[in-house]
């Protein structure tokens, strides 16, 4: 086990080095002089130029620059945003709870709907329900979610007036930040339930939008994995023992069928981040996705660099976490590599 963990961890280092090179190379690969690109035509003033060059760390030999970049990144210093003039790391952590809240809500709805749908579709194979769920999953899987979000807004916000169009909460509520999750913080604020209700209404459409692709993937995965398990001998034994169909499915089959589903959920982080970038843009959700898109438009390179480093680090760590949990659960994986 220790050997497996060591091996798994040692693969991390080259990955981190590579990501840091991509992030570091980013600004230096921009055609032309990045300082001039940032300052524009008017910014040829040598004092301003030198200051900007120093701020971006472009005034030293390239290797020195790289090691300085990595050294500072390891200490949590990812530079200063050229737009807001504040630290990239603190900006990231200001926005991260909003994205996390959205991502968790999207995933929750995908699991709560996807797993039961997949199970029922498998148990009632080739029924009308099965066809509808699988057809719906295929459409969901192909969904351009940047369009889906707008359609949700057209019907539920504009047409029916049920939910607000954008933001996290009505501007009239002033929620003191505690956890950063507005659903929790709002309950502790002086407006209590009214604020919570407002936050919830703002969250519903973006969460549905973000959760659509994961929902489709989870439903398909649950169905196929359930079908496989239902064909096993031990299920026949359970049926032969005289257990009811519900007991066979819920007690015996479900536990084994869910293993691949859990893996898929664990590895869905990339989909969630990609979805968050699009969903946050549609719903003006103040999270890291919108922050990154804005930083590209305004050419705020320190923010792009820092954002990439943090997101890549999180994804690599979580993927490794999934692998390690699997190695603990399943001895076959440990032996294989």
């Amino acid at each position, binding site marked *: 086990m220790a050997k497996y963990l060591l091996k798994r961890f040692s*693969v991390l280092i*080259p*990955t981190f080095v*590579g*990501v840091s090179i*991509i992030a570091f190379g*980013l600004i230096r*690969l*921009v*055609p032309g002089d990045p300082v001039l690109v940032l300052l524009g035509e008017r910014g040829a003033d040598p004092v301003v130029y030198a200051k900007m060059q120093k701020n971006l760390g472009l005034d030293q030999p390239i290797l020195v620059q790289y090691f300085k970049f990595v050294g500072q990144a390891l200490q949590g210093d990812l530079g200063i945003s050229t737009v807001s003039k504040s630290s990239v790391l603190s900006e990231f952590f200001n926005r991260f709870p909003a994205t996390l809240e959205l991502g968790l809500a999207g995933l929750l709805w995908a699991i709560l709907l996807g797993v039961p749908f997949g199970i029922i579709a498998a148990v009632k194979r080739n029924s009308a329900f099965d066809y509808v769920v699988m057809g719906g999953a*295929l*459409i969901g*899987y*192909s*969904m*351009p979610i*940047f*369009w*889906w979000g*707008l*359609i949700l*807004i*057209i019907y539920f916000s*504009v047409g029916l007036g049920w939910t607000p169009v954008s933001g996290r909460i009505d501007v009239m509520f002033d929620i003191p930040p505690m956890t950063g999750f507005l659903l929790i913080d709002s309950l502790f604020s002086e407006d209590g339930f009214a604020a919570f209700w407002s936050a919830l209404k703002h969250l519903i459409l973006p969460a549905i939008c973000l959760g659509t692709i994961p929902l489709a993937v989870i439903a398909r995965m649950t169905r196929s994995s359930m079908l496989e398990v239902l064909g096993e001998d031990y299920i026949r034994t359970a049926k032969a023992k005289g257990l009811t169909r519900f007991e066979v499915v819920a007690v015996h089959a479900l536990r084994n069928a869910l293993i691949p589903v859990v893996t898929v959920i664990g590895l869905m*982080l*990339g*989909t969630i*981040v*990609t979805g968050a*970038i*699009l969903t946050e*843009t549609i719903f003006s959700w103040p999270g890291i996705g919108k922050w*990154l*898109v804005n930083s*590209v*438009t305004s*050419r705020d*390179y320190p923010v*792009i660099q820092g954002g*990439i480093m943090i*997101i*890549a680090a999180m*994804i*690599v760590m979580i*993927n490794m976490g999934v692998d390690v949990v699997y190695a603990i659960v399943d001895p076959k994986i440990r032996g294989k590599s």
Partner: protein
Amino acid sequence: MSKPLPPLKEFWYFFRQNRGAVIGLWVIGLFLLIAIFAPFLAPYTESQMFPDALKLPPVWSGGTADFIAGTDDVGRDLLSRLIYGARISLGIGFMVVLFSMSIGASIGLIAGYAGGFIDGAIMRGVDILMALPSILLAIVVVSILGPNLFNAIVAVSIVAIPGFVRLVRASVRSEKSKQYVIASKSYGASHFRVLVKNILPNCMAPLIVQGALGFSDGILNAAALGFLGLGAQPPTAEWGTMLADARPFIESSPWLVTLPGLCILIVVLGFNLLGDGLRDAFDPRLKK
């Protein structure tokens, strides 16, 4: 036992049994025809403006037959733009698959065949690219190169390369120790000949499946970049860019949002159906 079918016929037999795949093929064929014959099908050009007909609704919700799908905020015929948009989106898909498949498959062939250090180095590179979510990686590339349609295609292609590398590498590794490869080598075939003439044809099945799915990913990602303002720029009639343009009029003219997105969904769905069908038809384990 009847005589076995020739490979192509056998493939077609299994493919035809998959209703979804056949529908997918029809959808793609239809859009391909629309793209090819766009100048004949479209009532107007994609940039012709009618200042007297701003934001006219489609004919089924009170518009006129002159503009079947309505007009946009500067009076361009939406149907014509959607038809020309099929050219752009299918073109994007084709370019992305061409770039990413040729580069990815070549790298995968080398990695799988060479093994050892070269393989390790290539696969670490692939791991790094895969550590970044697709849209984020595309955003990185676009932020370096600047936002336009061609750079979006480059970005989306780079994002798609790792998938092809992994796929081809895995097939090569399982093929290269087989007897026909050893036989070919013992006859004195060069590495290049072994790779291209012997191994590559046996990796084609998964490559074709991934190619079909690569079309849908490519179209979807490029449209997403267009929507974020990081891909094709207005006034290009790219479906994602058209969606972004229509956002301010979502309340007054919802058809400007609904129709381009529907086109993206239908084309992407078509390629996904085709890809799934191809996979089932190629995979002998699923043939029962």
